């Protein structure tokens, strides 16, 4: 049975998220891009409506959405503003390892507060010296008897400046490579030795908060370790199976937004006595955009559907992430092209989309790393 239709409830969810994007996000997107201020009020409103932390299961007070529903929401929020969506999505990225790797008591303790008020979480994997090669991280999580001690530095951590909870990856023994990697939760932002750096100045996603995080002998209770020492890599890989379709969905939302602007502008802008949309060069660009958005969206839905049906989705998740991110970059670039000189101006919305699109090819595994994953799936099976 093949069915491309969302259920009526899913359609309503999409409708509502889209309304939020159009009314609350789009009118403010350029303002927050300019000021690089964290859009706390808009994010809180999104939380109140249930648009944040869609990964939390119903047992712990969440909406209990499937991946298909989560990514539908992500696409809409990213349509509203890719930067604001990064702040929202980073919560899911940080909470997913808990959903995947925590025991019942930990889930209650860590997840439920996120359903009671708007709280912010940060996912701490990348380090100054280890990005794509996440398996080589150097942060340490050492057993110190009645607690663990964390030492090291993380880089590019989204939400860090506002986070109430940090999910931290480290190794208890770097000799053991992937098998040494462990995942621990720091739910006390004032704990001694936790240092949050200054906000990074970025090309795009400016209103999202990105900082370095340093751990100087940070003591963490034993009951905050997810699984056992050495379970971290497994948890991280499973997290990526969930989060990559989500990031891919954000690329679809950004691309759709760029396309909508470009198609409208092309019908209105007159050159050589007719709308530029009647020049074939423009028509082909717009046709390619529409085609690639649909292809991206279908990949995202399939990667999510596999996950919801308990089937392996690693390859599809990477297909979706790489294809949608690359398409989003191309589409946003061509939207600027279609706007001509106006596209290059901050008075018009598309240059921001072009800057924002770039990040999607970088975080959650670069477009190259996705191809590496795909090739590994092809040749090692």
């Amino acid at each position, binding site marked *: 049975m093949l069915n491309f239709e969302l259920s009526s409830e899913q359609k309503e969810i999409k*409708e509502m998220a889209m309304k939020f994007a159009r009314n609350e996000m789009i009118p403010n997107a350029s303002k927050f891009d300019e000021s690089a201020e964290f859009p706390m009020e808009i994010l809180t409103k999104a939380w109140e409506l*249930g*648009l944040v932390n869609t990964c939390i299961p119903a047992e712990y007070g969440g909406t209990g959405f499937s991946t298909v529903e989560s990514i539908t929401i992500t696409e809409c929020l990213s349509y509203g503003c890719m930067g604001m969506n990064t702040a929202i999505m980073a919560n899911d990225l940080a909470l997913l390892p808990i959903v995947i790797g925590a025991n019942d008591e930990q889930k209650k303790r860590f997840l439920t507060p996120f359903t009671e008020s708007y709280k912010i979480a940060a996912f701490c994997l990348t380090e100054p010296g280890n990005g794509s090669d996440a398996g080589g991280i150097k942060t340490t999580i050492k057993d110190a008897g009645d607690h663990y001690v964390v030492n090291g530095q993380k880089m590019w951590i989204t939400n860090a400046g506002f986070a109430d909870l940090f999910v931290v990856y480290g190794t208890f023994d770097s000799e053991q490579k992937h098998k040494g990697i462990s995942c621990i939760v720091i739910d006390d932002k004032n704990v001694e030795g936790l240092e949050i750096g200054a906000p990074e100045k970025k090309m795009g996603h400016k209103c999202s908060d990105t900082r370095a995080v340093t751990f100087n002998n940070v003591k963490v209770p034993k009951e905050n370790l997810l699984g056992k020492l050495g379970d971290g890599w497994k948890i991280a890989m499973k997290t990526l199976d969930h989060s990559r379709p989500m990031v891919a969905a954000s690329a679809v939302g950004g691309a759709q937004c760029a396309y909508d602007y470009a198609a409208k502008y092309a019908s209105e802008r007159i050159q050589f006595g007719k709308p530029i949309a009647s020049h074939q060069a423009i028509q082909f660009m717009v046709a390619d955009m529409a085609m690639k958005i649909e292809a991206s969206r279908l990949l995202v839905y399939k990667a999510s559907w596999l996950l919801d049906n308990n089937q392996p989705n690693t390859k599809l998740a990477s297909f979706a992430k790489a294809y949608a991110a690359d398409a989003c970059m191309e589409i946003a670039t061509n939207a600027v092209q279609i706007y001509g000189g106006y596209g290059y101006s901050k008075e018009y919305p598309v240059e921001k989309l072009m800057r924002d699109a770039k990040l999607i090819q970088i975080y959650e595994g670069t477009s190259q790393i996705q191809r590496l994953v795909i090739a590994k799936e092809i040749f090692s099976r």
Partner: protein
Amino acid sequence: MNIFVCIKQVPDTETKVIPNGDATFIETSSIKWIMNPYDEFAVEQALLLKAANAGSTVTVVRVGGVKDTEALRTAMAMGADESFLVEADDNLDSYMTAKAIKGAIAKSEKTPDIIFTGKQAIDDDCLQVPQLVAQMMELPSVSVIVGFEHSGDKLTLKREIEGGAIEVYEATTPCLVACNKGLNTPRYASLPGIMKAKRKPLTQLSLADVGVSEEDRRVSYSDFSLPPEKPPGKKFEAMDEAVQKDIVKEVVGLLRNEAKVI
């Protein structure tokens, strides 16, 4: 309180309307439906009134096609308690619609203390249903409401009139109130609200169930066609002061004799 809200599902404002095959109505097969925007103010006011009066219920009534029920579900996701849907073609006239609403309210077995509607539907702009419902149910009604206060059985209603001026009405419940933009800010349907709405009762009725038949029809529709294309606008250049006087004269002449608007 028994609070009722009448809502209509209308084509999305971006819809490109075209006549149907035999030109008896608009083509509805590929329309995206939304809740009539003025009805959103009605739903919001009903929910505010419910919140201020413990034990109240909000019942939504809609007459129309059953294929898409977005508007009703949205109202329940926003917080309405139950809904009644009278199945009907989209081409009912105002009289039949009002009679069907009255019938559906009777079927609910609740005596309304107040009925909220939008001031008009943005598709046919008939502006008749609220007054007809009130008349048929022998209730007072006030339309184009931008201010609403309630205490006991007394209502103080602000009504917008020509030129932006405001009239203040006092009314007693039961009463019908037709809402305008500016009355409140309609809430979003939250995601938990959408999930909860699934379990709220939606009763479907036929026109016969509510005592309406073709014999009630006062208006029948035919010969739908698109308006003629507008001729392109005229442009006047008057940068040069010497010619401005003549150009203004010419424009006034055209407005008077050709466009006949002054």
